[in-house]
């Protein structure tokens, strides 16, 4: 199964999750996702997701001047974003539990 198809459904949640403890700029967020194991995630997907979450009012942004290179736009969770993360996280856990149970029942190795 192509993980890019799965990613489409959960990229919002993944982005919100990596921003939970620490604000980040676009490329930084991409790197955290890849380091976390989502290696197939595309740059445009992350960038587009950030723009959409921002437009939906889940993120705030602020600009930090950089000594080497362009100014960086940092994204941070706001209250609505944390709320969304909590709800989506619950949904995912229950969904994943359901899927794991389904596979366990049929004797599939983890």
């Amino acid at each position, binding site marked *: 199964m192509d993980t890019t198809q799965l990613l489409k459904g959960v990229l919002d949640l993944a982005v919100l999750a990596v921003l939970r403890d620490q604000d980040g700029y676009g490329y930084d967020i991409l790197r955290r996702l890849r380091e976390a194991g989502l290696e197939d995630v*595309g*740059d445009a997907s992350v960038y587009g997701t950030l*723009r959409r979450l921002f437009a939906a009012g889940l993120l705030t942004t602020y600009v930090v001047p950089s000594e080497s290179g*362009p100014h960086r736009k940092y994204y941070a969770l706001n209250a609505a974003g944390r709320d969304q993360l909590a709800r989506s996280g619950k949904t995912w856990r229950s969904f994943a539990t359901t899927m794991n149970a389904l596979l366990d029942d049929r004797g599939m190795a983890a």
Partner: protein
Amino acid sequence: MTVSGQEIADYVDRVRAALADLSPKVRDELTEDLPEHLAEVAAEADGTLVDRLGTPEAYAAELRGAAGADGHPERSSLDRRLAAAHNRVSTQLRALDTQLGPLLGYASVSEFLRPLRPAWWLLRGWLVALLVSALHGESPGLLPRFDGSVLAGLFLLAGAVLASVWLGHRSAGFRGWPRWLLRLGTAALLLFTVPTLFNLDQRANVQLVSVYDPYESVQDVFVYDEQGRLIPNAQLFDQHGTPIELGSPTCEQSGDRPEPTNGYPRYYPYCPDLAPFGPPAPLPAPPAPLPAPPAPLPAPSAAAPDPAAPTASTSPTAAAPTEGTSTEASESPRPGPEPTR
């Protein structure tokens, strides 16, 4: 960083072109941070943007999907048709860009033109300086002038070039109205300065003609009267009474003519012996006329025969004006002393 700002700007342009069917608002929202973001990507690793991110069109498609932005139904069909046409044209231009590149020995024409951008900045600065100079009512020239001063013009030129280079470094990141303003300004600049340059070119050609002096090769001047007789010691003046200075008095045999002092007044011809159409008409009473050289008379003299000629044998006193012909000269060897006998 191995990726230039221009490459990023081009990449962003193509992403925006691929999103042309979105409403301008949505498209701007999606791409307003893209240059900065791509600069981060470029700073992190080597290789071109296309190597790392795929084609701008693929990037745009992924971005569109991730951002949940699809064609907006509220857009008019005209808008969509325009966007589609814009897309088609830019696709064709890109194809042309790649097709014509090999003619120049490059992968694409834009790759050939990209390193020439600083040259364009210099040229633009110079054109701006010319325009400012022209708007100040200075006559057009290759160097700008300011209030008639070349030095101030050079300062103006230096300032304009520096400003143009500065702008060139920053304009790659321009989006929205600053970019349109820049394009409009460039178009206006070319519209005003190109005719000026053509004008200048024409003037240069006219000057070239006026510099050529058709009398440059003239060394001496011979004035003939209507009878074809050479007029000695003629003076030439223009309509203002200014002596016309032609040739140079280099001839040694100035004879009994008044010696010009400081070149003035000038008497032509300087060298009567070099007359192209026979010798000079003798002065009223030459003391000892030289035997006339057997020089054939030119057409003008022959057409107007000297009326004095037939009378020469019977009236030697009238010999003076007849010296122009060789036959008369032999018949009257001593016309001068006759009256004194």
